[in-house]
C-alpha cells in the first residue's frame, strides 16, 4: 500500500511537471504570436512611452528576448518561474499588480463552496433517483427517471443558468422578500447574483445548478450498478434470510454499488470545473473558473498558468483519493 501511494505520488508530480511546462510553452507562444501583454498595462488607447513599456516588461518578466522569437520555449523564464513557485512566489497580475497567491486565497474558497453544494446535489439527487429507478426496473418510474435526467442533462448548463438569472430570479426574490423581508435567508437565496455579504446563502442556487451537470450519467451509473448487485448471490441470500427490503437496499446494495459512484464523482469533478467557469461568470462569483477564463482573455499569462496548475493538481489529487477509496470500500481490492 505504502509503495503504491509513493508510486502514484511520483506519477502525479511528473504529470504536474508536464502540465506546467506545456502551459508555460503555450503562454510563451501566445506572447510571441499575439503580442506583448505589457501593452495592456497602459489601457490600450494610448501609445506608451518606450521607456515606460520597458519598465513594465521588466516588472513582469516579459523582457527576455526569447519572447520575440516565435517557437522558442523560453526555458530560462521557465526555470525562473519554477524557482519562484518553489519559494512560494506565484508572481503578480498585469492588471493592478496583485499578488497571485492572495488572489487564489479569495477565489479558491468560493469555488470550493460552489462545489460543496454541487457535489451534495449531484450525489443526493442521483442516489435517490438511481436507487428508485433500480428498484422499479423496467416499469414506468424507471423510464420516467431516465427520461427526466437525460432531459436535464441535455440542456446545457448555461441555458439553465441564463433562464434562472433572467427569468426566475428577480420575481422569486421579490416574492420572497415580500413575505420574509430582504435580510432573511429566503430574501437572499434566490438573488440573481452572488453577493459577498452572504457568501453561503447566495451560492446555494448556483451550486445546485452546477450539480445538474452529469446528473443523467450518475443516475444511470448508480442504477446499473445497483441492478448488478440486486441480482447477485449475496442479495438473494439476504432475501432468503428474510431481511427487510430497506435494509437490503442500504446495507447490501448501496454500499456495494459505491465503487462506480466514487469513480464517477472523481470524473465529474473535472467536468464541474468547466461548469464552474460558466456559472461563476453568469452569477458573478469570484471563483477559479471565472478567474482562469478572464485571465485567458486578458492575456494574464501568469494567472493562467497558476490557475490551471491548481486545477490540474486538484484533478490529480482527486483521482488519487478515488483510487485509494476503492480499497476502503471493497475488501477484495488490495494494492501491492
Amino acid at each position, binding site marked *: 500500500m505504502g509503495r503504491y501511494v509513493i508510486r502514484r505520488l511520483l506519477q502525479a508530480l511528473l504529470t504536474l511537471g508536464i502540465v506546467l511546462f506545456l502551459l508555460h510553452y503555450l503562454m510563451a507562444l501566445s506572447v510571441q504570436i499575439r*503580442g506583448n501583454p505589457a501593452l495592456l498595462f497602459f489601457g490600450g488607447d494610448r501609445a506608451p512611452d518606450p521607456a515606460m513599456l520597458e519598465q513594465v516588461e521588466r516588472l513582469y518578466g516579459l523582457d527576455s528576448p526569447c519572447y520575440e522569437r516565435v517557437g522558442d520555449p523560453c526555458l530560462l523564464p521557465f526555470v525562473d518561474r519554477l524557482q519562484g513557485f518553489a519559494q512560494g512566489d506565484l508572481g503578480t497580475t498585469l492588471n493592478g499588480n496583485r499578488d497571485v497567491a492572495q488572489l487564489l486565497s479569495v477565489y479558491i474558497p468560493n469555488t470550493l463552496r460552489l462545489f460543496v453544494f454541487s457535489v451534495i446535489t449531484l450525489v443526493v439527487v442521483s442516489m435517490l433517483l438511481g436507487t428508485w429507478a433500480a428498484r422499479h426496473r423496467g416499469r414506468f418510474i424507471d423510464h420516467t427517471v431516465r427520461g427526466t435526467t437525460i432531459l436535464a442533462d441535455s440542456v446545457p448548463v448555461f441555458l439553465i443558468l441564463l433562464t434562472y438569472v433572467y427569468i426566475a430570479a428577480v420575481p*422569486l426574490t421579490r416574492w420572497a422578500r415580500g413575505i420574509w423581508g430582504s435580510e432573511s435567508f429566503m430574501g437572499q437565496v434566490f438573488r440573481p447574483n452572488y453577493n459577498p455579504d452572504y457568501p453561503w446563502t447566495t451560492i446555494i442556487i448556483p451550486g445546485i445548478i452546477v450539480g445538474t451537470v452529469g446528473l443523467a450519467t450518475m443516475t444511470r451509473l448508480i442504477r446499473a450498478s445497483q441492478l448488478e448487485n440486486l441480482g447477485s448471490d449475496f442479495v438473494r441470500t439476504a432475501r432468503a434470510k428474510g431481511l427487510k427490503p430497506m435494509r437490503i437496499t442500504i446495507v447490501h446494495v448501496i454500499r456495494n454499488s459505491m465503487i462506480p459512484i466514487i469513480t464517477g464523482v472523481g470524473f465529474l469533478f473535472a467536468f464541474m470545473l468547466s461548469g464552474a467557469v460558466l456559472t461563476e461568470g453568469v452569477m458573478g462569483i469570484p471563483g477559479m473558473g471565472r478567474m482562469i477564463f478572464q485571465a485567458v482573455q486578458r492575456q494574464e499569462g501568469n494567472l493562467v498558468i497558476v490557475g490551471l496548475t491548481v486545477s490540474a493538481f486538484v484533478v490529480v489529487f482527486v483521482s488519487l483519493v478515488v483510487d485509494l477509496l476503492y480499497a476502503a470500500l471493497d475488501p477484495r481490492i488490495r494494492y501491492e
Partner: protein
Amino acid sequence: MRRMRMTAAAIAAAGMVVTTAACAGDESDVDGEGGGDAIINMQIGEVRSLVPGGSGESEGYRIIKNVYDGLVYYNIDTGEPENLAAEEITSEDNQTWTIKIKEGLTFHNGEPVNADAFIRSWDRTAYAPNVLPLNYFFATFEGHAEMNPDPLPEDQWADPEVPEYAPVDVTHLSGVTAVDDLTIEVKLTAPFIGFPTMLGYEAFYPIAQECLDDLEACEKKPIGNGPFMFEEEYDIEAGGTAVAWEDYAGGKKPSIDGVRWHVYLEGDDCWADFQTGDIDVCSPAAADYEAAMNDPELAERLIQEPDPSILMLAFPLYDEKYQSVELRRAISMAIDREGVANVVGPERFQPLDEWVPASILGGGTNSCGEYCTYDPDGAKDLLAQAGGWPEGEKLRIWVNDASDNLDVFRAIGDSISESLGIEYELVPMEWTEFLTAREGHSLDGPFRSGWGPDYNLNENFLEPIYGGGSSVNDQGWENADYDAKIAEAGAAATLDEAVALYAEAEAILAADMPSVPVFGQQYNYFYTDRLDNVQVHPIYAGPRGDCELRDVVITE
C-alpha cells in the same frame, strides 16, 4: 425552455431544504446594507488601485474622487474646474503655475493637506521605477525627463534586443517646489493653459505620509482628504463601504451617510440586482434595454446624457492606398451614421460629425461637416476624383473583437460597401494583438479607434491621439501647421483663447482627415425610487451606472 425552468426551480426548492440548516448562520455578516442609514448601493467594476496615480481607469477613479478632494472639482453642469482644495491657481505665462492651497484642510488621519502632501504624491507617480499608469500626466512637468530617462546607448546592452536603463536616482520632480507650507510652484516644459483643468484628475490628488509609508495598507484602506472615508478595508472582489466623514471641512459635503460599493467583475451585470432593489443606479445591458425603456414606471427614473466617449474609423496613413484625402472623405460620406445607429442601438450611439464631442469644453464645432454627412452620390464622386478603388481588392477594416464591436463595424462596413460599391472584409483581432499591430503600423486598412477623455478640454481629444509625429501616433499622421497651432494654444493668455485655438487645430485635422468620427455615445442609467437629485457627471462616469455621490439624496 419552460420545462427547464420548472425543473431548475424544482431542483432549487429541493436543494434548499437540504442546505437551509448549513447556512442559517450567515445573516450576521450583513453590515448595515439597506438598513435605516442613508447608505447608497452602487455597482462597481474591478478596481486597479485606490492610491492616486495608480488607477487610471474609471472604476478606481469613481472611489478615489469621493474619498479624496483634488485641487479642483468639475462643475456638474459645465464640466469646468472649480477650486476645491485649491484657494487659487494662477500663472502669468501659462508655464510657471502657482497653486495656493486652502488653510486648515486635513486627511482622515489628521495629517495636514499642504504643499508637501501634493508634492509627495506627484513625485511618486512621476518616478519611472514605480511604474504607475498615470505617469504620463507629468510628462509636461520640468524634471519628468530626469525621472524617466531614455535607455543607455545600444553598445552597452548585454543583449542587443533588450534595451537597458541606468538606475534612476532622481526621486523628486525638479519643476515642482513648495514656496511655503501652502503654496506650490509648478514649472512646465512648455506653456499649457489647460493646466488647471487637469488638476481635478486623480493623478494630481494629495497623498498622506502615513499612506506612503505603508502603501499596501493604504491600498486597502485609503487615507483620503475627501468627504467619504473607509472604516473597514476595501476588497477588490467583495467591495466595501465608505461612510461620510464627520470632520470634512472641504467644499463639497454629501448629504448621504455613506456608500456601499458592490463589485461586478468583468462580464457581470448589475441589472438583475437593480430590479430586486439591491443596487441603486444601473445601466441595462443591450439585451435588457428594450424592456427597461418600455416599462413606464422605470422610464421616469432614467437619466440619458451624452457620454463624451467617441468612436472613430482611423486610416493608416503609412499605407500607400490611403494617401488621398478624397478617398478618406469618400469613405466617411459613405457611412450612413443614422442608419447604422438604428441597427446597433439608437439609444446608445449618436451620429458624430466632429473630433471633439459637444459635451467637452471647446467641442461641438461640427468640424467634419458635409464629409460626415451621409451622401452616397457625393461619396462616389469623391472616390472617382481619388482615382477609384483598386479593382478586385477588398477594403479591410480592422477591429478588436470585444463586446459588440463586430456588429457595429459590420454595419459600418455594409454601409460603406453599399454606397461605394466596393467589397469589404472585417478583420477581427484579439485586443493585445490589435494594439500591437495598430501601434506597430502594420494594418493595411481603416481601423477602430475609440477615445474617452482624461479631462474636460478639447485638447485632450487632439494631442494625445494625433500628436507626437507620424512615427508615434496610430494613424501615422503629421502636419506642421497643426503642431504649431497646438503649441500656440498652449501658450494662449486665457483659457477661452486657448480653446478657440485648439478648435482651429481641430479644423486643420478635419481638413486632413486622418480619422473619421462615427459615433458619440450615450449614458443610459436607471435609478431606484429611493434616490433623488441623481446627477451624472458629464465627463467622468462609470460605464455601467454612476452618479455624483456628493449630490445625491436618499429619500426613504
